[in-house]
């Protein structure tokens, strides 16, 4: 047994469902036909169904790019930085590098290597 308020609410809701606009009714009719069609494929082929999957894939790619930034840049820069640090930590090496005899000796070594290859 319903209260007067419940009866009134029910009547109003019933009325609202009978006053749907033509476009909505047509779309409901189309949805019904699609559902009753044999082997209807729901919305699998519609763009809207793929939006969440595409969004997830995009977010994954962004997350990977953020988590693993370009390795090549780091690898290219790393030897230079390491060498600089080693030089700064070893004052003796700096002395060697600033000595002109060191470069003459290096050239002699290179020249002897070339002669060996030529022979």
């Amino acid at each position, binding site marked *: 047994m*319903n209260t007067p*308020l419940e009866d*009134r*609410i*029910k009547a109003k*809701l019933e009325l609202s469902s*009978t006053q749907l606009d033509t476009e909505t009714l047509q779309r*409901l009719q189309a*949805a019904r036909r699609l559902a*009753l069609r044999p082997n209807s494929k729901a919305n699998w082929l519609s763009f809207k169904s793929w939006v969440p999957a595409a969004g997830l894939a995009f977010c994954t790619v962004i997350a990977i790019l953020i988590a693993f930034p370009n390795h090549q840049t780091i690898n290219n820069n790393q030897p230079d930085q390491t060498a600089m640090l080693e030089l700064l930590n070893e004052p003796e090496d700096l002395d060697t590098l600033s000595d002109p005899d060191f470069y003459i000796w290096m050239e002699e070594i290179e020249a002897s290597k070339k002669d060996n290859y030529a022979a």
Partner: protein
Amino acid sequence: MELFLADIQSRAFRMAQLATGNRDDALDIVQDAMIKLVQKYSAHDKATWKPLFYSILESRILDWHRRQKVRNRFRTWFHLDNEDEVAENPLEQQADDNHVIPDFQLQDTQFMQNLETALQELPIRQQQVFLLRLWEGLDISQTAIAMQCSESSVKTHYARALEKLRIALKDHQS
């Protein structure tokens, strides 16, 4: 099956519309529920179609709310506010013709507006239980099947929903 779907479609659409506040999403939800019912349960006993259909509809509505939550969270994170996608209020779409209608019709219109607002403000499960019980006429056990909850939960949800509506619509009770 066709007669069943034709009979149920308008009420199902209105329920989905009240739950989502969006006509297009409501239509998609109803279409999905119809397709699932036909594909999975058309061989079942006709008496079970109604609770099964509303069970599917209910889960689609909950899915929609979950997606909305995730979407809103992303919007908050990225500070996105798309005003175009704000849930539309169907009452706002209607022409304002209050100036030409008599007092009793105006009261009726206001009652309907307040009813829609009050229903939309209910927690989604209370709203669905209330509509299934009162409007669709499902009994407690059928509603429990449709909502996938216990019969005592159905009673509690219904009582709470009715109490909230009574408070919200107290100005219209004479």
